[in-house]
């Protein structure tokens, strides 16, 4: 077939190809125009440049030296902690599922860009690392629990003896009209004037105690922000008690694990308080108790990470940073933590 016959036979295909080419050219041109500026690297005397300003330059090495004093220690310790904890604990399916679920929630709540920059600021790769970050948090939390359970048992005993800690929950049935009555001796007494509805609600909760799960009752009936969390108020001791109304803390103080109070009247209404944990074993299973220990003894975790790292063959090779970490721990311990 000669050229003329070829064109005659395939003229329509050729026309479509030309239009496709034109369209692609326009589209590509538009994309190129809107493409953000790309920057080329440059080197001088074998060193990468960050910028050039006339004859003056600023190299990557100089920027590294400028950022090192204020940023190296925290970046390296976070990365070291991440490497140690990840190697010390296997990633379970449960950890992965929890991490994936948390990651999805966080991205939908805050947006990927925000998450991306926050994670990068912590030394992670960005939002692509979010699931790994949550897995690391779970492993880190488990490591912390294991430290206090296994290696620091005496420290925990001493903390419990000193602070009489517990984990508590409550169910609040609000009463709008609570009167403060002054007695003849000058003391005051609270007197509740519940509506029929408020009384009925309280009676219903009391009738179900002991037969239904406390946390579920709290979710269904409690009228404060802890309801969605099964009524959990978390860690409680004498220091924390000062933040509650006196009627509440007077009832909560003597509770031991598993005990539930009768309805206790405060200016807000009736509280039914439960002690969820007061024994060592139950306390150590609770994250808010662990958090209290971590807050009280911050160097315990740091020293444990270093010891575990040595055991696993993970070492901080930068002598300067290694010394800074030791100095930070020593200073914290001198301060009595």
């Amino acid at each position, binding site marked *: 077939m000669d050229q003329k016959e070829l064109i005659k036979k395939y003229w329509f295909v050729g026309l479509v190809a030309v239009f496709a080419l034109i369209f692609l050219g326009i589209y590509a041109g538009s994309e190129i125009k809107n493409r953000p500026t*790309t*920057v080329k690297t440059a080197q001088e005397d074998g060193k990468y440049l960050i910028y050039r*300003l006339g004859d003056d330059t600023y190299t990557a090495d100089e920027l590294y030296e400028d*950022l090192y*004093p204020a940023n190296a220690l925290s970046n390296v310790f976070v990365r070291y902690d991440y490497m140690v904890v990840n190697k010390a604990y296997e990633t379970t399916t449960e950890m992965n599922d929890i991490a994936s679920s948390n990651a999805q929630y966080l991205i939908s709540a805050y947006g990927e860009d925000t998450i991306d920059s926050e994670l990068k*600021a912590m*030394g992670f790769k*960005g939002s692509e690392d979010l699931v790994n970050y949550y897995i690391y948090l779970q492993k880190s939390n488990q490591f912390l629990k294991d430290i206090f359970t296994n290696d620091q048992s005496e420290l925990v005993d001493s903390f419990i003896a000193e602070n009489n800690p517990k984990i508590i929950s409550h169910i609040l049935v609000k009463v709008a009209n609570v009167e403060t009555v002054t007695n003849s001796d000058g003391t005051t007494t609270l007197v509740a004037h519940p509506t029929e509805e408020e009384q009925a609600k309280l009676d219903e909760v009391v009738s179900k105690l002991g037969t239904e799960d406390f946390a579920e009752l709290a979710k269904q009936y409690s009228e404060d922000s802890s309801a969605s969390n099964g009524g959990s108020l978390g860690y409680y001791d004498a220091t924390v008690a000062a933040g509650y109304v006196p009627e509440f803390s007077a009832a909560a103080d003597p509770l031991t694990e598993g005990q539930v109070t009768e309805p206790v009247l405060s200016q807000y209404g009736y509280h039914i308080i439960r002690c969820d944990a007061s024994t060592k074993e139950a306390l150590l299973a609770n994250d808010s108790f662990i958090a209290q220990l971590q807050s009280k003894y911050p160097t315990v975790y740091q020293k444990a990470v270093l010891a575990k790292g040595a055991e696993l063959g993970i070492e901080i090779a930068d002598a300067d940073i290694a010394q800074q970490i030791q100095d930070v721990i020593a200073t914290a311990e001198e301060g009595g933590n």
Partner: protein
Amino acid sequence: MKKVLLVLLAVLFLFGCSNAGGTAKVTDGETAIITSPDGNYTKQDLFDAFMNTDMSYTLLQHICKQIAAKEGFDVEASVEETVEMYKSMYGESFDLLTESYGGLDGFKEYIRGSVSITRLYDEYLKMNMEKYVEEYKPFKAQIVYFDTMEDVDKFLGTVNSGADFAQTATDMGYLLDATGQVYTDKDSLPYEVKEYINSSSETGLSEPIVTVLSTTDANGTATETNRYYIVNVLDRDYNNFEDEFINSLRSYVDNAAAMSYYFEKHNLTVHDQRVYDLLSATYEGVK
């Protein structure tokens, strides 16, 4: 037909090419910061972690130090003054403060950067002073206000007899800067006061300027009362209070315009995509 297909493929290929910019690397980037059987964390990794934080201020300090030197601005006196100020603020803790900067020399470099940024900013404002004077209409004045004519008459009676404006205001319960303050047209002064200032080129004491103060009480009831301003214009020539005016301008004119001007003038050319993206998000003139 084959050639057409080849061209189409070439266009698609070129379009699909990655447009990621280049990123700078540190020397000896493979040096281990943390060693591990599963792979080391290196100096390059640490540098990349630094680059993912907001190091825009560190960059700006360094760039401005160089620009200030090129412009011939001597900042050393300001550096020493600022260091002395920190010494007296921190006392015995001053050494601890400088430790996080790598020592006194490192701290001075940090201060030199900050002072250079401020100097370039101020010089830019001075360069464009006529424009800002026209826009902001600065004047130096003492201003008081009273809610009753009785207080107004008492104040004016005392001042017109020769007593000091500031002292009289203080005696009547005012906290007032004795030397007067620089105001601009953008400050939150009542419309009537600005009208008075703009309608005259004189200095001196005004008659009481009546303004209306609207308040709403807890029940939502609105009340209008008179408030009486007295203005003592001390100076309308900005040349006599330029430094104070520049100080005032900093609240209104951000330094992005100043930095952009100097970046353009000195042909700042960046060779790291991350740094380019960071600087160009705020400043123009970055290449």
